[in-house]
């Protein structure tokens, strides 16, 4: 039996464990250590993972799910999901409880189920490699994930049969992997530019204590956006040559997107990329159309400069919220594959006036930290003194709806967790038997401008005149960054029922059903190869 740390990424995932005080990263099926975060569903009910799944993005784009992390824990009608749908070739529908569901050939899957399949696959890889059963996991999430996104990630882990020991913020995991602090006091900035998200976190590290001072980010900013920018560049070249926009054809678009990613990686190491993309699309006359291209790094940099500037702007805001200047940061850690892009490194260095740390692999460093924390938690209470303690903060402010469409702040953002706040609620009508409280996450004064989290229902209130019943509600954000609510009668002290219906999430019953289904399901660890698309000269 062992525990693992999993960096469940937008584009790729990494799974690691600690063996004999050393971090061991589980290799991917086709070499390397990055497991593509892609699941493909076939007509015969089989699921494909890894590179097979990536290949199926081209041949079966409708049934191949990628970037599920962009959707997890969000309501179907949310602007993030609607924005993602515009770019995704697979179909999403609105399911129970406002959830976004993916429609596979056999049935509809909730997003935690899709991510659960992926986690199940990762678990299998680790079990094969380690020759042990994996029981528990620490799963990392972006520091700015809200309550619903964290809950959905835990659900995904449960569906994969994992005991989720903790959802850990990615930057905290990275800092832990670097083992900073030790015998001195340091202020650290973790600049995490991944496939789909950007995060910036400022930590204070002293000895074994890691305190998050401030965190912020953008859930919709990542290397994928750079791929899309390059896709547009390639598509324009193609259109100039053939008079046809390949973006109108899903398969052609998927091919170009994969090519764009490869061009991006190539341009991180070389000043230019030339090549030929064969069989991109078919002309009216049935001919296969190809694209010869030549892109210089500065063309690419011009296309992505505004994306990089946005990260620096967010960095500035987060530093300001911690009351710090860029020069007061002692160390900068780069995390995420996108930090390999030279322009990103140059801009970070220019902003902080200091060379960032890159000695640990930016793709693996988060999984390293997660594995260390999983080990710490699995042995909690044994040799206390040697373990780091991670002091995280609330990812968002928490508020409740009040008259006039406003949100009343209950808990602030960036305060150390766990944190508790108690409020007294009362009835507004005679003989009212339930009180509903709408809860949201976000910093805006207007309720509508925040993310609605769900509804808290206090039920079973005995008949009384309005205002005569007082219910004490305690809102607590735990160390996972997840809201828990307790209610009691202020007069009698008796516990009262308080259920939070999380909008856009799975119910406990749905999760339990999904766990059972996954247990009996088969998955495929096949061995097909990605067709060669690109030859970079």
């Amino acid at each position, binding site marked *: 039996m062992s525990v693992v740390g999993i960096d469940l990424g937008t584009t790729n995932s990494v799974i690691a464990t600690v063996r004999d005080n050393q971090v061991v990263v589980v290799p991917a099926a086709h070499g390397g250590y990055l497991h593509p975060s892609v699941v493909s569903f076939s007509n015969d009910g089989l699921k494909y993972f890894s590179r097979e799944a990536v290949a199926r993005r081209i041949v079966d784009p409708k049934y191949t799910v990628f970037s599920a992390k962009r959707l997890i824990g969000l309501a179907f009608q949310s602007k993030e999901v609607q924005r993602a749908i515009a770019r995704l070739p697979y179909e999403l529908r609105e399911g129970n409880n406002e959830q976004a569901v993916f429609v596979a050939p056999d049935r509809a899957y909730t997003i935690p189920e899709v991510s659960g399949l992926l986690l199940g696959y990762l678990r299998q890889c680790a079990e094969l490699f380690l020759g042990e059963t994996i029981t528990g996991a620490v799963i990392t999430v972006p520091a700015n994930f809200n309550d619903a996104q964290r809950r959905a990630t835990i659900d995904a882990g449960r569906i994969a049969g994992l005991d989720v*020991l*903790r959802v850990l913020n990615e930057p905290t995991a990275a800092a832990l992997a670097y083992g900073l602090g030790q015998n001195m006091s340091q202020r650290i900035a973790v600049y995490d530019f991944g496939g789909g998200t950007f995060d910036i976190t400022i930590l204070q590290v*002293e*000895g*074994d*204590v890691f*305190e998050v001072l401030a965190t912020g980010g953008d859930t919709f900013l990542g290397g994928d956006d750079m791929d899309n920018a390059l896709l547009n560049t390639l598509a324009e070249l193609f259109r100039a040559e053939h008079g046809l926009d390949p973006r109108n054809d899903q398969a052609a678009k998927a091919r170009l997107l994969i090519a764009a990613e490869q061009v991006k990686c190539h341009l991180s190491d070389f000043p230019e990329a030339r090549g030929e993309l064969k069989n991109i699309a078919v002309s009216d006359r049935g001919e296969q159309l190809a694209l010869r291209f030549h892109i210089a790094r500065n063309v690419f940099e011009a296309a992505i400069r505004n994306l990089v500037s946005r990260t620096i702007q967010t960095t500035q805001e987060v530093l300001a919220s911690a009351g710090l200047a860029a020069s007061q940061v002692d160390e900068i850690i780069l995390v995420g594959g996108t930090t390999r892009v030279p322009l990103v490194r140059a801009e970070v260095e220019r902003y902080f006036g200091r060379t960032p740390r890159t000695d640990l692999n930016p793709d693996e460093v988060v999984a390293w930290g997660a594995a260390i924390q999983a080990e*710490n*938690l*699995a042995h*909690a*209470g044994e040799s*206390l003194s040697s373990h780091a*303690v*991670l*002091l995280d903060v609330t990812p968002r402010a928490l508020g*409740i*709806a*009040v*008259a006039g*469409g406003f949100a*009343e*702040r*209950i*808990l*602030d953002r960036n*305060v*150390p*967790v*766990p*944190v*508790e*706040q*108690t*409020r*007294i*609620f*009362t009835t*507004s*009508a*005679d003989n*009212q038997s339930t*009180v*509903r*409280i*709408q809860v949201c996450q976000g910093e805006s004064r207007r309720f509508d401008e925040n993310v609605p989290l769900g509804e808290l229902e206090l039920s079973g209130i005995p008949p009384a005149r309005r*205002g005569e019943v007082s219910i004490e509600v305690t809102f*607590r954000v*735990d*160390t996972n960054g997840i809201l828990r609510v307790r209610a009691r009668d202020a007069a009698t002290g008796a516990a009262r029922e308080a259920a939070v219906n999380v909008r856009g999430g799975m119910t406990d019953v749905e999760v339990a059903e999904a766990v059972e289904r996954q247990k009996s399901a088969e998955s495929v660890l096949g061995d097909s190869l990605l067709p060669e698309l690109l030859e970079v000269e």
Partner: protein
Amino acid sequence: MAQRTSEQLANFARQLHGKLDQLTYYELLGVSSTASIPEVRSAFYSLSNDLHPDRYHGLNDRELKDRLETIYARICEGYRVLSTPEKRAAYARALTEGKRRLTSTDRESKAPQNPEDSIRHEDAKKFFRLGMISLARKDYKGAVMNFNFARSFEPGAAVINQKLGEAQAALPKPGGPGGK
């Protein structure tokens, strides 16, 4: 602090949990009222090393775990207040009023839930809001009209009927329908 046996831990948690509301943040963190921010932080870090919930991750006693988390949440609260100059100044005022805690807004909410929450129909909600605005402006005639509109969309909503009653009762004209 050295590692405790589970019995010692349970005793410690019960005692501290019981007197949590009587302790000032200074007492809770074990620092003097003139402690500097680095001193407060250092005290908080050492308490965290001992009492952070991750330290008791494997504990099976849920009640004990919950108590420890409540204690630690209060320690976090104290740290946050004492390490932020503005909050610490506000806390100094609160202490003179005999309070031991400073909540983020430092007040209780009387009826924080939106009265219109129980209304389901969007148009009913809209007119209900307009009615509430009229009511606030003491335009009782306008309020009665808007609440009546609201009721036409959702006759069953208790809160509409209640407010309609209030508005009607406040109408200056004698002999108006009493809605109490």
